[in-house]
């Protein structure tokens, strides 16, 4: 495990692997996005109560899941960089934060658009919505912290501590609908018994979840590669690539 982390953490190794990975991930992303969007907006039947308004689920739910997932990545790479001092994990955390913030904003805004006709209000201060808003502020705080230091290593260390402290918000967001009475509904898919969504509506949702996740992976790989090139611009292997 330890050896594997260090091997993966070597910039050149990561660069080579990510080059060959990102091509396939991009293809999966495009295929899933187009088919998921078509399935969700055209093929899936309207909901028995909400009619066509329910279709916002195909953006809202994947975005909300990714907002939590990316924060876990942020905290995990923070822990790795604090303990093992691996540069790649600093870079992954730094480039992940704006994507995570965008997904969080997307989840909040699509939720508000859906909330007006369905609930009767854009926003309520219930536990789920409030904790998700705190998540957005955590992302923004992390990004501000990154740009506040000239020394990237100090910025990464400060960010890692912030990310680790903020991780406590993730279980709170996830369980908020079960622990407290909220206006937001309970989980549809991530509960232990079978999902409360008809399979004709579930399949496009799963495709969209894969599309959102692979979009994140592709973006992180591309941005990480460019950061590696910038950082390692004096090493021989980068000069060889750029020479070609």
């Amino acid at each position, binding site marked *: 495990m330890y050896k594997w982390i260090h091997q993966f953490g070597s910039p050149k190794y990561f660069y080579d692997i990510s080059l060959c990975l990102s091509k396939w991930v991009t293809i999966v992303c495009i295929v899933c996005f187009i088919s998921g969007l078509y399935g969700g907006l055209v093929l899936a*039947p309207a909901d028995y109560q909400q009619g066509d308004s329910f279709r916002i689920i195909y953006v809202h739910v994947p975005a909300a899941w990714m907002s939590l997932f990316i924060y876990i990545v942020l905290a995990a790479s923070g822990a790795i960089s*604090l303990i093992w001092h691996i540069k790649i994990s600093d870079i992954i955390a730094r480039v992940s934060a704006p994507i995570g913030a965008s997904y969080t904003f997307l989840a909040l805004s699509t939720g508000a658009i859906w909330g007006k006709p*369905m609930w009767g*209000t854009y926003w309520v201060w219930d536990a789920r919505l409030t904790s998700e808003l705190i998540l957005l502020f955590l992302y923004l705080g992390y990004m501000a912290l990154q740009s506040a230091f000239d020394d990237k290593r100090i910025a990464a260390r400060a960010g890692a501590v912030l990310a680790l402290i903020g991780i406590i918000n993730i279980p709170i967001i996830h369980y908020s609908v079960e622990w407290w009475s909220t206006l937001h509904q309970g989980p549809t898919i991530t509960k232990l018994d079978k999902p409360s969504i008809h399979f004709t*509506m579930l399949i496009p949702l799963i495709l969209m979840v894969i599309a959102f996740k692979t979009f994140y992976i592709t973006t992180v790989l591309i941005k990480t590669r460019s950061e590696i090139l910038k950082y390692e611009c004096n090493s021989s292997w980068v000069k060889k690539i750029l020479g070609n």
Partner: protein
Amino acid sequence: MTSRKKRILIVSFILIGISIAATLILTAFEENLMYFYSPTEIANGEAPKVRAFRIGGLVLTNSVKRNPNDLKVTFVLTDTVNEIKVIYDGILPDLFREGQGIVANGKMKPDNVFVADEVLAKHDENYMPPEVAKALEDAGALNPYQENKVAK
């Protein structure tokens, strides 16, 4: 102890520390994090008497009475054990219907009538096409709300 082990310890201490802190804070604020009170909690006197609060429950079937001349509407909210009469003057959300879960914000009047100044619909976690919903209804099991009505 190597410095790496020390760093692992520090990271674990951060995580354990904030978990304990968060648990304590959330336990202390438990009541304030509740978005609404149920009719049973109100019957037990747990809801505030003077200030405004939110009440959540199911709209009892055949309890919605609309005033033909204005927007005034009265209905009964139930959690299948206790019931509360609610008066509201305003526009109801699309999902408002009998058997639907809703949340109302307002004050309790001395005659045990809840005067709402905002009514929000609480959506459940079930998604299905209308045909499936109809088939389930015919079979006698649609969703929790319907089951509650049967239980009543």
